[in-house]
């Protein structure tokens, strides 16, 4: 099962990463959810023992590792929190940029960078030239 878990978690991580890189911002949020699922699965898979649920009265055989379960629970909630924030952020960006693409945001950035730079470029380059 080791390999199966690793494969599944790796595949989810890769799929999530691919989604995060898409230009559609809402898909980016989905990507983060998938990645967080990958992380939770990994935490669960990293348990040191598999068996019955760790609830008293304990059965005599093997018991599942409760610590990794507790970690998985915490990480699920944290994943939920981050996703919520990211989703709202994306909604705001969509609202402000009137676009759902990371590309448009990037183009905007390039344009702003250029205007910002142009303000000072001449004076600055002259200053640099003076030091030569």
């Amino acid at each position, binding site marked *: 099962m080791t390999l199966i878990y690793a494969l599944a978690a790796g595949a989810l991580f890769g799929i999530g990463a691919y989604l995060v890189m898409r230009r559609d911002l809402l898909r980016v949020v*989905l990507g983060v959810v998938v990645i967080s699922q990958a992380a939770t699965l990994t935490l669960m898979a990293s348990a040191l023992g598999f068996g019955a649920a760790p609830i008293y009265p304990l059965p005599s055989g093997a018991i599942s590792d409760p610590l990794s379960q507790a970690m998985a629970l*915490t990480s699920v909630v944290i994943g939920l929190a981050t996703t919520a924030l990211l989703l709202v952020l994306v909604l705001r960006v969509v609202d402000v940029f009137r676009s759902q693409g990371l590309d448009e945001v990037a183009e905007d950035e390039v344009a702003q960078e250029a205007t910002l730079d142009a303000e000072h470029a001449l004076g600055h380059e002259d200053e640099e030239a003076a030091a030569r």
Partner: protein
Amino acid sequence: MSHPTPLAWLAVVIAALAFGACLLLAMSGGGRVDIPWIPSLGIRFELEFDGLAAMYALLATGIGVAVFTYGAGYLPIHLHHAHRPRDDDRRFWPWMLLFMAAMVVLACAQDLIVLFVAFDLTAVASYFLIGFDRERRDARGAAMMALLVTVTTAVLMLIGAVLLSVEHGTSSIPTLIDVAEAGPVTTLATLLIAVAALAKSAQVPLHFWLPRAMEAPTPVSAYLHSAAMVAAGVLVIGRIHPLLALEPMVLDGLLVIGVCSIVIGGLLSLAQDELKQVLAYSTVSQYGYVVVLYGLGGPVAAGAAAFYVIAHAIAKSALFMTAGTVILATDETRLSRLGGLVRPMPLLAAASGAAAMALAALPLTIGFFKDELFFAAATERGPLTGIVAVLAAALTLAYIGRFWLRLFAGPLGIEPHAVPRLLVVPILVLGVLGIAGGIVVEPFARLAEAAASVTYGAPVAIHPAYHLDTRPENLMALAAWLVGAIILVAAPIRQPIVTRVAVLGGRLGPRRWYGALLQGLSRLSDAIHGEEVRDLRRSVAAVLVPTGVLIGIGFLATPSAWDYRIGDIGREDLPVVVLLGLGVGAALTVTRDPGRLRPVLALSVLGFALAAVYAVMAAPDVALVAVLVEAVYTLVFVAVFAVLPLSQRAAASAAHTARRRRDLAAGVIAGIGAFITIWAALSREPSQRGDALELIRLTPQAHGSDVVTVILADFRGLDTMVEITVLAVAVVGATSLLRRGRSW
């Protein structure tokens, strides 16, 4: 208009007091300060007013008094010309005083780190002084250049100091001199320190900042570029000379650089037309003498070097001040337009004549002895250095003669206006000092002897005197005067040659390289920056790909038992395998589907499949929460995505396909990286039994039965508390984004 400000007088008084204190200290035999400074590193704030310190401190404060007095008169006029308020001198005097203080500390410093600190402080002060006329672009550029060259090279000094202290366990110079032996580290370290010192003393090829620094107001040039800043370099060499002398090659290097500086500085000085430029290149050349002397080594040279510094400082600061006075009086900076000033300004002519004679080493000036000692040291080494010494002295005579004659002799160029007395008196004092030193040389010689003893590491005795015989020094002096006079007179032949040298230097010289380096850096910077802004800033792949690459390298490059396990897959595992397959398949459809709703539903299939997996893995708590959270996700995404329109852009362009491919590649890299890491970790079993067993054992003591719940609320309740705080921050963040922080 020309009355000095109170601040200026205050500065003069402080300088005078400092000079008095130094004089007292020197006569009372010195003193020392030694307090722990950074005990953890064994660095002590160690100062000692020894012979070397006395000489440089007296120069810094003594010349300081003269120059400050001059500056008190100069600055109001300077500011007036530039239409600046009189009180702009508050940007001036504090730096001058800081400079003086740093110089005195530098002179006394017995610890390499303290030495470095003082050394850099002088550079910082010089930046502000050189750039005092900050409204002028050239002044700012010059300040920047001086800062860059001297501070950057000073880093080498720090490296050298650290290397020495790591090698020998101390950074105290006297201790180092005691314990250090020749070796590669010591040689490298001292070499680095020497480079810093040479750059500071404006030696070829790092001399180019000095002529540019003439953008500074004249008092700054007169102080920094004759007796203080440039002297700091040779002071350091004089201080660590015993370490340098451990490796003869280093001394030979000094010799070569010194000779180059003498020749290049001298030739370029002859080629200049601007008054202060002539003097600047002359300074390059003159400090070349001192460096040559240190390169020669031995007691005679050490004595000569010290004496040379004294004589040069007196003469050169007087000459700089002369240049400043002439410029203020005539508003002209070019030698070719000036002349005949001896009649309108006789006092100035006489005073600066004395200084010029001293620099040119004519008899009855202190300068005569500097060359006498120089020649003695040079001939000691061999005939070749002797010949070089004569040529050097001839060059000096020529350029300084040219300078003075062009200014004061010949027909009147420009009629000067009257100048305040403060602009002449300090020059006169220094001129008289130069003559006095030529008559009563004893005090100066003693000062130089004490300094040289520190440099040489053993008592040194020098005996400058007039000897009316045919000893080599005298013959060499005569030869130098003769050759110098010839060069001076043969202007029609001389000028084309030196002009050509100057042009060649401008084209191939280090300054050109320096400029090209800066420009190249700037262009490189712009090019990469443009690339980054265009393509990388928004790219998440830019993080994932390097991560994947690092994991790949780590995977391949690490020694390993290559212990990757597939693990058993029993029949009872079948549901898990199926569910995982279902989840991954669902996730895959998310990547393909361009719509809104179906990806969300596919995602919830993934979520519920995983929840089922957790249930099968005997993790009911996780399964419960996973189901609940998944329900929330689905609800929220459906609600939110439903109201958002699809992205408008058509998605068929070639660029889009290429982009998709690139993302796919990055995603695959990220996935493989994650897979390898996870597989590697899961394949190894822990070396010891897990803490989990302990958790299970202690659960009844925490009054519970469900171990996971007990962990969440008790054993690791802190985690849970942080977790819900995280949730709170997320909610707060959401409200602040959506409703500007209104919570309802």
